[in-house]
């Protein structure tokens, strides 16, 4: 007797059964080769070739070359920042390279601040000029990242954040308090943008493994020049934590931790380079910061305990647990229905995977366990949804947010 096929299997079979013949494929290919035949362009009389050539002429001029090392206050600094650098950005081959160029310009402005400060030449006018340029470059980066993938955006914002953070520390060492405050504000903004981009990343095992290797190599390279660095120690601890998440298949969490590890390494290198180049005495990172961070990184084992013990006050001024608040929201929405299949229709944001470890019986969710406890069913459902949506369950607002994502679509 033939085994019955499911509809899903039939669809897959249908997909395999429909193919282009070689002749059909070749026929279309021939037409596409004809329409994509390269056009021959004449030199000098087409704007496509002419504009880059003009840019090249300008960039290789003596004036442009002389402006390269200029600093605020020098005659040619305006030529460098208003002509040469913008033109150099235009000839980058694609949007990603243009964004990286703007990122590099932001780093350059910070280096100029450090150089001038170390020579005692950083007055208020130059500070303002450099901070204004820094802000412009960051805005250019933010603009350039629109439309680009979240993996690239989170990498760029992560780099910017670590460079800013490093320079924040350098300005403390140089006793430039007002600069330190401005840089801290910029760091906070970069951090917010980085978090937003990371939230859009959907990682898989390959992406996580590739990034892990890159971060591991960064640490190895950094260790050759930085001995006994507490930042590198921190970077290694975070890398280890990321590896355990990769093993557990939590790739998104692993990516966040790997980026964090990379930021620590980068921060350490930038600070060390500045110390060497400008003979700045480096202050050690606060060891308490290391411990606080390591505690925050560890995921609590007993999430259920955290949920059932978290209380809030409802409208009737009664103390209730977060899970029972969630249970009320669900049962109010489900109403009189006792058909488990209605859950997915009535609460449109639920997906079948949310019900892992949860047994639907009538209108009461019960967990598949020997204790047969319905309370645990709602806890498990809420945890599954929160994990999928990457929401930390800590307050009524977090449950409200989850509810808007699953029920108010």
């Amino acid at each position, binding site marked *: 007797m033939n085994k019955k096929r499911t509809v899903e299997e039939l669809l897959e079979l249908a*997909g395999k059964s429909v193919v282009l013949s070689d002749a059909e494929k070749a026929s279309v290919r021939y*037409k596409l*080769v004809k329409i*994509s035949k390269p056009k021959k362009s004449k030199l000098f009389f087409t704007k496509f070739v002419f504009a880059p050539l003009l840019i090249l002429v300008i960039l290789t001029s003596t004036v442009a070359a002389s402006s390269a090392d200029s600093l605020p206050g020098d005659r040619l600094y305006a030529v460098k920042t208003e002509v040469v650098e913008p033109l150099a950005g235009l000839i980058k081959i694609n949007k990603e390279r243009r964004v990286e160029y703007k990122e590099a310009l932001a780093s350059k402005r910070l280096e100029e601040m450090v150089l001038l400060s170390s020579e005692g030449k950083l007055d208020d006018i130059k500070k303002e000029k450099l901070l204004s340029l820094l802000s412009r470059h960051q805005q250019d980066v933010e603009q350039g990242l629109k439309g680009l993938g979240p993996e690239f955006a989170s990498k760029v914002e992560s780099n910017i954040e670590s460079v800013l953070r490093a320079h924040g520390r350098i300005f403390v060492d140089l006793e430039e308090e007002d600069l330190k405050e401005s840089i801290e504000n910029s760091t906070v903004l970069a951090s917010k943008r980085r978090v937003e981009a990371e939230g859009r990343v959907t990682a898989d095992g390959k992406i996580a493994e590739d990034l892990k290797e890159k971060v591991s190599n960064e640490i190895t390279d950094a260790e050759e020049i930085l001995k006994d660095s507490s930042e590198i120690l921190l970077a290694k601890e975070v890398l280890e934590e990321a590896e355990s998440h990769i093993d557990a298949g939590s790739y998104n969490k692993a990516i966040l931790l790997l980026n964090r590890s990379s930021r620590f390494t980068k921060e350490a290198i930038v600070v060390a380079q500045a110390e060497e180049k400008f003979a700045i005495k480096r202050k050690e990172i606060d060891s308490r910061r290391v411990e606080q961070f390591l505690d925050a990184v560890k995921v609590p084992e007993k999430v259920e305990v955290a949920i059932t013990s978290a209380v809030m006050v409802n409208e009737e001024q009664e103390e209730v647990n977060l899970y029972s608040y969630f249970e009320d929201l669900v049962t109010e929405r489900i109403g009189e229905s006792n058909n488990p299949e209605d859950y997915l229709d009535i609460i449109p944001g639920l997906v079948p995977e949310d019900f892992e470890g949860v047994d639907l019986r009538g209108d009461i969710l019960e967990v598949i366990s020997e204790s047969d406890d319905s309370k645990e069913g709602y806890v498990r459902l809420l945890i599954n949804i929160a994990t999928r949506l990457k929401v930390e369950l800590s307050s009524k607002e977090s449950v409200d947010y989850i509810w808007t994502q699953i029920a108010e679509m």
Partner: protein
Amino acid sequence: MVEDNSLQKQFIESYDQFADDIFKHCFFRVSDKEVAIDMMQEVFTKVWKYVDDGNDIHNIRAFLYKVANNMIIDYYRKKKSVSLDKIEEGREVPFEIEDVGADEKILSESEVKIISGFLEKLEEPYKQAVVLRYIEGMSIDEIVEVTGESNNNVSVRINRGIKKLKKLINE
């Protein structure tokens, strides 16, 4: 004189790699082989014009599917109502779904026609989700990349799309 072969080379390579997938996708969305072949050619033609104008494409696969999807939407806007013949083909079940045995590796032309007939009755966006998931074999994350929808929306559409398709088949 200046020539640039590399762009054409990349473009033709993308055709060699994705032509079958795009054709398959178009076929199961419009249920007509000739239309699907023309549509596939038009998708690649539009993509060539886009890059030839100096635009960058970050993810060629996702871009091809987006162009194809827009073309399919336009096709249905221009098309008159679905012919009665096609509706009847979907309703008629000359063979039981269960007759396709476990040993079958592919379906016959008539069997494919019946499956695509049922699919044609499935409304969007469920049809797109079901085709991408089961016909094209894409993961949820890949579908998210192609459609720009959230992970959650994609999962729900696949789930509901399959339920609706099963209901259509069993009617």
